[in-house]
């Protein structure tokens, strides 16, 4: 596997500018001769599809939902970072880049991250021009708040629905282009295979989820904007439909999968209530601007929170991390919550929870201000738990939320398969081993609006591949592969439902490859996954037929891919014998903090999964602008 990162030379401040000048251009009349497939319509996919079509390319856009507006970016609550320095508090592109590199525990690629910080300012301008109703101050200017891992206020927001508003902005831009006829939209289509010809990505195979029709689509380049793999754990804050299939299918065709063990466990989610539960709900990190996290000092303290006096409470984030306090980054806040609960000081059913308390903020600012800031989140909490957070502290516990790993890409966001570009959460490059809050929205839109539209031209201008049609044997073969797999699922007629397997797999992953990992557990996991996978292929029950809307069949395909993927994820977690960011190996800790080993692991682990056994390759990480240091928020 050849991993050429194509990072431009020169000082970090000039890399993107000089790279843009050095890339070949395609004249407007020629752009329309190129067809680009974009899979996924979240922030990255919608913004890319709209922008590419504005530039003149023919775009075919696909999503599995019934409308592009429903992609899971819509659920992001808190905000989007940008180095605007509107608050005059000393923010800059360099500071945002540094915070992101450090937040990722020096496991991201600094050149990509610096570019992300650089274009962040354009995103806010673009979104305002589209009519995104960001929160404003009385003077009419944009309002900001703070997020974890930063000591400046650089997060722009639209109440607690920032992801929704940004996605609607991108969706509207996409619909505008659909209206002109330059984007063809295919909803309720799921990508089930990537097609490569002479080593280049040339198309995809989809299943129409209503009619069951399996179709081939040919193009000059393919863009995957298909999100993360958090649902490997079954329970996560992801939408139910989120899956690894598109990226995993690409990996099976030769694309390298980078750092699969990097998963983000978000500290503030509503704790699990029962075994029937289908998903976990996030309570935005923005709540930590005003909420204080605490647990009782005493073990097994079952008193109601208002009966626990101030001096018997442990505000453990403020105690351990005085300079960042409640706004410590996610991996650190999650680990701290787990420690408190492991010590027997957790609250609520099963002792898996800590308090997030707004009493002080309500006393200081009044209920009205708190309700204006977080009203919808408080309502959501009440709806789910039946408790009123204005009078009783919220109970929260960490949950799987985001995945930093993804398909490997170079500086141009192209994978090692020429023509296959990967953007948003689906790629690996910008968040290292831990993502800071409000940076996912920034990355999705940066990739889609301002990076890929430039860099994909460099590929198209130089690739010089002949035009292909879906009559090519590779397309025929890929369609046959999809049909064979579908027929196999329907023929097993076993005794267990797909969900029951998924739940069991997810539980295994959470226990042994979740918030804490160790050599013994991972080795056990690597035996348990194949055993359960074997049972799945013998004993799964997929009712219904292939030529109709069949939700069980859709899930079966996704879970089958999770089974293969999870094994690689566990291998990566075992191979990375250090702790960094969200990857916490219990063997490597320093007073409960992750202990990196830069000498041995300052690299991206890239897995090649085309053979019998996954093979690990490395891209060494080079830090020229920011020097890796012990990551401290104390």
């Amino acid at each position, binding site marked *: 596997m050849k991993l050429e990162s194509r990072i431009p030379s020169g000082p970090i401040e000039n890399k993107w500018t000089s790279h843009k000048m050095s890339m070949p251009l395609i004249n407007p009349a020629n752009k329309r001769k190129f067809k680009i497939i974009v899979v996924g319509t979240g922030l990255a996919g919608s913004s890319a599809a709209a*922008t590419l079509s*504005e530039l003149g390319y023919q775009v075919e856009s696909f999503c599995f*939902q*019934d*409308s*592009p*507006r*429903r992609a899971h970016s*819509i*659920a992001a609550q808190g905000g989007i970072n940008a180095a*605007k320095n*509107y608050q005059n508090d000393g923010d800059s592109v360099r500071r945002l880049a540094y915070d992101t590199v450090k937040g990722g525990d020096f496991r991201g690629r600094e050149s990509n991250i610096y570019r992300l910080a650089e274009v962040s300012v*354009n995103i*806010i*301008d*673009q979104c*305002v*021009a*589209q*009519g995104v*109703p*960001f*929160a*404003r101050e009385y003077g*009419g*200017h*944009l309002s900001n708040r703070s997020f974890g891992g930063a000591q400046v206020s650089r997060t722009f927001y*639209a*109440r607690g*629905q920032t*992801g*929704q*508003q940004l996605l609607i902005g991108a969706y*509207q*831009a996409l*619909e*505008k282009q*659909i*209206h002109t006829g330059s984007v063809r*939209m295919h909803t309720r289509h799921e990508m089930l295979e990537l097609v490569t010809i002479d080593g280049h990505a040339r198309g995809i195979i989809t299943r129409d989820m*209503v009619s069951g029709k399996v179709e081939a689509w040919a193009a000059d380049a393919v863009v995957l904007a298909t999100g993360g793999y958090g649902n490997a754990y079954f329970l996560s804050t992801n*939408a*139910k439909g989120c899956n690894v299939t598109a990226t995993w299918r690409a990996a099976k065709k030769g694309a390298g999968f980078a750092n699969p063990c990097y998963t983000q466990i978000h500290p503030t989610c509503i704790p699990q209530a*029962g075994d*029937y539960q*289908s*998903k976990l*709900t996030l309570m935005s990190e923005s709540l930590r601007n005003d909420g204080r996290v605490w647990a009782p000092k005493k073990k097994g303290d079952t008193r109601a929170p208002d009966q626990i006096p101030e001096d018997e409470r442990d505000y453990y984030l403020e105690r351990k991390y005085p300079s960042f306090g409640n706004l410590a980054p996610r991996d650190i806040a999650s680990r701290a919550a787990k420690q408190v609960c492991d010590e027997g000081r957790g609250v609520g059913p099963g002792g898996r929870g800590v308090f997030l308390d707004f009493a002080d903020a309500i006393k200081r600012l009044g209920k009205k201000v708190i309700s204006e800031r977080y009203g919808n989140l408080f309502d*959501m909490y009440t*709806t789910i738990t*039946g408790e009123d957070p204005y009078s009783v502290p919220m109970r929260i516990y960490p949950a799987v939320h985001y995945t930093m790993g993804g398909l490997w890409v170079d500086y141009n966001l192209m994978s090692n398969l020429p023509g296959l570009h990967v953007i948003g959460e689906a790629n690996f490059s910008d968040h290292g081993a831990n993502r800071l809050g409000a940076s996912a929205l920034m990355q999705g839109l940066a990739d889609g*609006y301002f990076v890929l*539209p430039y860099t994909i031209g460099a590929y198209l201008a130089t690739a010089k591949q002949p035009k292909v049609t879906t009559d090519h044997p590779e397309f025929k073969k890929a369609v046959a592969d999809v049909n064979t797999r579908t027929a196999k699922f329907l023929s097993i007629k076993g005794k267990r*439902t797909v969900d029951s397997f998924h739940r069991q797999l997810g539980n295994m992953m959470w226990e042994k490859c979740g918030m804490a990992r160790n050599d013994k557990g991972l080795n056990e996991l690597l035996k348990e996954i194949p055993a359960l996978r074997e049972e799945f292929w013998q004993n799964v029950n997929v*009712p219904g037929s292939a030529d*109709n*809307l*069949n*939700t*069980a069949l859709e899930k079966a395909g996704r879970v089958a891919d999770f089974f293969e993927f999870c094994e690689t994820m566990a291998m990566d977690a075992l191979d990375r014998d250090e702790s960094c960011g969200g990857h916490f190996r219990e063997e490597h800790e320093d007073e409960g903090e992750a202990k990196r080993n830069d000498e041995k692991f300052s690299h991206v682990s890239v897995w090649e999964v085309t053979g019998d056994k996954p093979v690990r390759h490395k891209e060494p990480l080079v830090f020229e602008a920011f020097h890796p240091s012990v990551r401290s928020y104390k």
Partner: protein
Amino acid sequence: MKLKLHVWRQPNKDQAGAMKDYAVEGVSEHMSFLEMMDTLNEQLMNKGEEPVAFDHDCREGICGSCSMVINGLPHGGHKGVTVCQLHMRHFKDGDEIFIEPWRAKAFPVLKDLVVDRAAFDRIVASGGYVSVATGGAPDANALPIPKKEADLSMDAAACIGCGACVAACKNASAMLFTAAKASHLNHLPQGQPERFERVKNMSMQMDAEGFGTCTNLSQCEAVCPKEISVRVIAEFNADLIKAQVKG
């Protein structure tokens, strides 16, 4: 608890459907309505039957996928919640529950409780945006927007496009959805240049899709999970009249 369900089953778009009875057991009051449906589906599949198809995704009330009429009311009729956020503590042991898809000519049933809402996308495509291409936008703070206007815009922009407003309306009108999109943009300076063309085009598209006219009865507002006010419809109609005067 134990429940008796009457669920709309329809094999596909072209075949007729009918209500079917099911008994579902082991329902906890902490479950969401959709988790109760998951429980039913697991029970059905364990008996070798096909699960009930329904749209759902985020399960936190923001994606707008879930869409069920429960006991005659879209999303079950609890103020400000979608089906996925409706919890079983609002029901009791032995309850009988009727579950149907959105019913509207413009939303054909695809299977069971799944309907086709592509008509909403086409309404947005007819003008629900600011025609600005990527790049070249002025600084975000160059144009201050009064907080009050920004808040009114945000109130309307909160729409999740679920279609409950259509399902609740006896004319199956899409006025609340369409007017909310127009109001979101028309309260902002960025939306002004296309304001009147927008309402005209969106209104024509709404008619072309087969949605009915507004009844002025505000059932849409009553069931809207985002509690969008019918003031957006008043604004829309006012703009439509102005658009006609302007020609």
